[in-house]
């Protein structure tokens, strides 16, 4: 295995990612505080939570547009295109590697380089997150900020409720994604390798 440096995360991705991570953390914290609000336990005032949540949501949308356009005008989008034939086999291979392979010190099946930045599992989750779940959360979030647009009632269930349930379900998925994301980012050569890469932009090894 040769030690060589490749620039995987250009400045714009790092900036976007930093902003994205901060905003999502804020959204999760304030979101949870609203979701489980009670009369007595007021570690965060409801109106403060609402204000932070709404502001972060608007900023996240802007940051998302930045990500979207950035991908559109560079070649970074290619990494997000999933090749359907053999997708499940590749996902399984990568999963098997994480479940057993790593412990048996196997070679990682899809080494990272400038051609392939994401392993199949990363690609699958990143694409799903960035082009499906996050947009759904943003759309339902905006709808709740302008409730006039929501149909009042459908099949005896308030439109607002349906919107909110979708929003909250999406939020839980992002939360779980984030936990897994943080963990698997420690699967580099050293636990800090990938984190360093996300800061400096350069990837130093070709595993995991």
């Amino acid at each position: 295995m040769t030690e060589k440096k490749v620039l995987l995360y250009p400045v714009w991705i790092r900036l976007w990612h930093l902003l994205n991570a901060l905003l999502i953390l804020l959204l999760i914290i304030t979101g949870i505080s609203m979701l489980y609000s009670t009369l007595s336990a007021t570690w965060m005032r409801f109106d403060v939570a609402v204000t932070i949540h709404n502001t972060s949501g608007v900023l996240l949308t802007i940051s998302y547009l930045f990500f979207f356009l950035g991908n559109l005008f560079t070649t970074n989008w290619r990494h997000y295109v999933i090749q359907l034939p053999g997708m499940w086999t590749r996902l399984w291979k990568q999963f098997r590697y994480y479940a057993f392979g790593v412990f048996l010190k196997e070679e990682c099946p899809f080494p990272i380089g400038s051609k392939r930045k994401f392993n199949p599992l990363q690609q699958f989750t990143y694409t799903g997150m960035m082009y499906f779940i996050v947009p759904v959360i943003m759309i339902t979030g905006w709808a709740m900020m302008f409730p006039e647009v929501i149909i009042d009632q459908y099949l005896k269930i308030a439109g607002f409720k349906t919107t909110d349930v979708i929003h909250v379900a999406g939020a839980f998925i992002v939360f779980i994604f984030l936990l897994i994301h943080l963990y698997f980012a420690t699967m580099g050569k050293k636990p800090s390798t990938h984190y360093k890469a996300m800061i400096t932009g350069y990837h130093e090894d070709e595993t995991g």
Partner: protein
Amino acid sequence: MNIRRWFGILLFGCFILPAGLFAQDEAQNEEFPNKEENALCLKCHGNQVYPMPVDGTGETVLLKMCRGDRIDTVAYYKGNHGTFTCTDCHSYEYTTFPHNPNLRLEQMPSCLDCHDGDPAVEKYHFESIDEEYRKSGHANLDSTLFSCWSCHNPHSFRLAVRTDINISALVKYDNSMCLNCHVNPVNPDYYLGGGLDLIVAKHTWLPKTENHFRNVRCIECHAKINENVLVPHNIVKKEDAVKRCVECHSTDSRLLHTLYKYQPQQARQTKGFVNSVISGQGYVVGANRSILLNRIGIVLVICTILGIGIHTTIRIILK
């Protein structure tokens, strides 16, 4: 703006107007034995003009009826007291015209005069409501200017909470009682200035103010809850009005004790759970939650953390 206005006129012309006409028909088709007698008064008080006899000539001229003395005939027969003749409450002497000026000194009956201890309306708890009302700030105002009738228009009020009217219509009806004075220049005695914008401006700390006003009643925040009565009547001083969001946006939402109080009781009897109305008509972030979704969410988060823990442990052991 213009398009909106035209659209409004069109809408009014096509739907609301005919609907009003039909409603009138309906009301007129119902049997009201008091109708004939009331017509004696309503031929003047139900119209914009009335015939004034000219002294000695036997002729009449049409004069304008003051807006404040006009009565909406349709609304009258739809009201809770639609079966009344005018002279049930007003002096019989009003049957002569011109009315005797001394009649103005006549003391009008209050709700309690008729409903005190009335077993037929026991469920409303008039006595408790009266007690509550006396504690409210409004009761300090001059009693000729302010009484139960100020909110409950004697010629049209029709209580809505115990009917199957939907929540947004109920909110609109109840709020119109307050707005009738608080933003209505037709009531200069009580007019606090401005239009709805003014009342919205007094509540800028409440985000989406107009949306809130469409979904909760003024009394939700301005009246003190009393479990004895369904509709709280003690309007507290403005400093004591509810300002904390979690009073509504939490599981122990006060809305369950006011706005949603009647319906959940009904629903509990028929359906066995409290959330039913709320999930059908309104949705209050923090108060209604999909308990299932929240549990599944938490369980999945915990499983993820456990999974990561196990993976880490094996990684460390096999290092």
